[in-house]
């Protein structure tokens, strides 16, 4: 399972969650981690991703069960609201722990 290493062990390539590790998805997950929920426009603004880019990454995260997507109408305009699922929250925290371990225990160059 990605992100689960014993203390003192460096994460391996196979143990790092590649779905989260991709820079755009990492940004999306990080933003959703620090808020309860956010709409599409908010994430576009905060991450700097284009509509198409964000939409594509959002689909991948949703398919993996990491985010929940709710579509609703605000007035007459469609609005998409995103939030992390429990699985997404756990996966992000595991990823974070792996990377913290990697940076903390890797020797200086």
């Amino acid at each position, binding site marked *: 399972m990605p992100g689960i290493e014993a203390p003192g062990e460096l994460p391996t390539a196979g143990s790092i969650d590649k779905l989260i590790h991709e820079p755009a998805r990492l940004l999306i997950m990080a933003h959703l981690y620090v808020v309860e929920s*956010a709409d599409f*426009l908010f994430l576009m603004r*905060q991450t700097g991703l284009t509509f198409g880019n964000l939409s594509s990454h959002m689909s991948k995260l949703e398919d993996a069960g990491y985010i929940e997507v709710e579509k609703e109408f605000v007035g007459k305009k469609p*609005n*998409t609201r995103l939030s992390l699922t429990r699985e997404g929250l756990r996966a992000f925290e595991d990823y974070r722990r792996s990377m*913290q371990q990697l940076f903390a225990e890797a020797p200086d160059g």
Partner: protein
Amino acid sequence: MDPIDLKEIERRAYTSYHEDGILDIFIGIGVLIAAGYMMTDLFWMAGTSVAIFTPLYIQVKRSITFPRLGQVTFSRKRTGRSKKTMLFILLLNVAGLLLGVVFFSAVTGPSNPAWYDLVVRWYGVVLGVVIAGLEVVFAHLSDLERFNWYAAVTLVVIPSVHLLGTPLFAHLAVLGAVVTVAGLYQLQRFRLKYPLVAGEAEVAGD
């Protein structure tokens, strides 16, 4: 070491909602109105302004900020901090009320206490320090650092009433004008940084 600064991400997400300068504009206009009330001795109408301003502020945020920035529900920790800020403002009002009672007692007592004479003589300094202190606390609670700059301006503008001999309402008007203009500048920068985006359907080309 965290590879990604989550605290900074959260802080930026929160403060981006106040980059619009709308809060500054409302506070600045509020101070200008207070100066006007002082000039016309209609201070008792201040409560009416608060009743009107609050729903108006919410409506302006909905019209200007949300369509440009999107909508977000912040974490409980952040909303807890916002609640602390609101509690601070509420305590402020209670403290102001108590202060009024204390002053009333001092004025209507058999003789004025020494501290009362000192405060009356240097009212500009006292008021300037109190307002600046509140702005600094607000800046800390709300993460809006520009309120520290407003505190510095307050410390110059309000106590200078003793140097210039001009009425207090004029200095309040200057302070209100500075904050309002700063807010308008912020708003213009915000509108350029976050142009209005069409709805999701239009952006997606549906």
